[in-house]
């Protein structure tokens, strides 16, 4: 068996590598084992174990529902068939997307630093531990999504439009994975990034229409196109389209899909660029 030469461009110009030119899927075993490690160790030592993955989102929905629905009297959009909306269900639809993004970013951004000693001793691509960590975080989101689906079916808010999830989910996962890989890699070079992300995520939580409907945002205020700005946030696009599919039971518009795909393609391109610019020499930097 001969291992081919892989070429990659680093800061020093063209560098030649002996690294296996094996395709990414040949690392699937390793990625899966990294994911299993994170999944299995997550609730080790807790009394309630995996029950927490249900308790936490349910508690969050209850808290926000009480605050926004009971105290601020926020009006959720009506259900697909025109029945009056349910704030808790509507909120959960947005929260699933948001926590999928923010939890993954928060937990996976430190993965490369955490795997550092191994990366210095043996070669495996730097995306392997990151993708493993993303998978384990997404598992949590999957559980929340299943709860959401069960609730929606129970209240009879189902439709053929749900099938568009088949496209929406992979697009979302690729987007989140790309953003996470970029930030996890740069976190090795600038370790402040992990803290910066925590702050930025708090800001973005309010800049994304999760607890409020986008229609509540004025189109323009003091000459600033506020709503357009908020819609420019890719997370807003993901939340809105996910809500449109599940809560509104309607396929998102072509424009909406185009924006999602554009953001995802951009994130993926940047991730690949990051991998070739920074990810190949990560063993030297940790």
């Amino acid at each position: 068996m001969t291992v081919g030469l892989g070429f990659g461009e680093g800061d020093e110009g063209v560098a030649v590598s002996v690294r296996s030119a094996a395709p990414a899927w040949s690392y699937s075993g390793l990625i899966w084992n990294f994911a299993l490690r994170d999944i299995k160790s997550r609730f080790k030592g807790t009394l309630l174990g995996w029950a927490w993955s249900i308790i936490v989102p349910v508690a969050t929905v209850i808290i926000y529902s009480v605050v926004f629905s009971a105290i601020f009297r926020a009006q959720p959009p009506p259900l697909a068939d025109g029945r009056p909306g349910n704030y808790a269900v509507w909120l959960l639809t947005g929260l699933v997307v948001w926590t999928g993004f923010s939890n993954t970013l928060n937990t996976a951004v430190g993965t490369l630093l955490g795997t550092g000693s191994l990366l210095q001793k043996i070669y495996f691509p730097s995306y392997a531990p990151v993708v493993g960590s993303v998978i384990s975080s997404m598992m949590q989101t999957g559980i929340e999504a299943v709860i959401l689906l069960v609730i929606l079916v129970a209240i009879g808010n189902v439709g053929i439009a749900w099938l568009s999830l088949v496209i929406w989910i992979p697009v979302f996962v690729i987007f989140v994975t790309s953003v996470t890989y970029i930030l996890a890699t740069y976190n090795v070079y600038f370790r402040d990034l992990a803290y910066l992300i925590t702050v930025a995520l708090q800001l973005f939580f309010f800049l994304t229409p999760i607890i409020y409907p986008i229609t509540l945002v004025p189109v323009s205020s003091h000459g600033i196109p506020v709503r357009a700005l908020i819609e420019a946030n890719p997370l807003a696009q993901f939340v809105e389209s996910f809500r449109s599919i599940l809560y509104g039971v309607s396929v998102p518009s072509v424009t909406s899909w185009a924006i999602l795909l554009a953001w995802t393609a951009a994130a993926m391109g940047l991730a690949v660029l990051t991998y070739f610019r920074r990810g190949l020499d990560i063993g030297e930097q940790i």
Partner: protein
Amino acid sequence: MSRQDVAVALDDVSKRFMLSQERRTGLKERVVRGKSRPGKAVWALKDASFEVPQGTTFGLVGHNGSGKSTALKVISGIYRPTSGDVTVNGRLSALLELGAGFHPDLSGRENIRLNGSILGMSRREVEDAMDGIIDFSGLEEFIDSPVKIYSSGMYVRLGFAIAVSVRPEILAIDEIIAVGDEEFQRKCFDHLHDLRRTGSTILLVSHSLGIMEDLCDTAVWLDHGEVRGLGDARGVVRDYVASVNQREAAAAPLEDRETAEHVADRHGSGEVRVDRVTFHDNDGSPVSIVLPGQAVTVRLRYTARTQIDAAVFGLGFVHESGVTVAGPNSAQLGPWVVPAGAGVVEFRIPELTLQPGMFMVRTAVVDRGHTYDHADNQATLKVRGSGEAEPGLVRMAGQWQPPRPDPRAAAVTSYPEARGVQS
């Protein structure tokens, strides 16, 4: 040598590291002071070329920072060379620090899966090897408990059991055989022996020259990233030892001054004093590292304040473990007359019987119960490993006789029925 027979080939490989004055990993530094200026370039490898034939064991020797580990990391793909070509024919794996990559909260079984895949085994390979690994580790009872409850011994056993289950075509080992207890080291050597027999190529970095000479067929000697020697392992190691000796000899005057002041435990009446002890080879040039079997002269420089009519000179070789291995003295030649002034006494060893290790040298000048001078820790004789390593502190003189038939045994075998009864 055709390319087919080569497991690993380096072709003018260089690796440069940039040493910035300080690493700007913080965003604040980056913003406040701007992009860090490119620092000094350090060449960890400089146009290094060598080939490792398929199925052989190859050693990398050199002092600290000579580029051995960098070479190994470039071969393993952890570092990318700045220039040059690296060719690796076959699946390469590394013998990791045992237990590196273990997750404390996962069970032994789960850690086997994780570690196996880090070492490049496929899922099926890991599952196939699972029972063997558990069996080898002897941890059946604990295999489904988290490894954080393991004792450090169990940890190492599990790590080792996983490591030996990996059967790579090329194995890279960086200085890990030096760690662990006697039993572990023996197991490690057995494993390496096994791999060699089955045709694996082994790349080895170790500071233990004895190990290098023992295990390696060929070796490369790296010095500041450049290849200084390449070829037969024994020859390369000898050249390397010679160069270390030379360098240490050049640095010796300073060292002597220091040790002279630090000689502890000197006692005696002081009419004569042994000031310095040095070691010399056949040509009389000073050496600080010797090999077993080598001719060594121990030179004692003394100063006598007055003439001494009867004196016996003695030496003590104390192994680092505290055992006095030998104590040659001049008593059998009768007492010597030592004239006043400075002089030299020599003890010539035609063939050093000491085994590899550090030996503290003690000197004494006595006369029937009276001690003129007695000093511990006069000098340290460093004996480096050589190919024919044997256990023990000294090499016993003697000759082995090859196997030959035993006349008594021959008498037994001539009775077939008697043999039948025995079996």
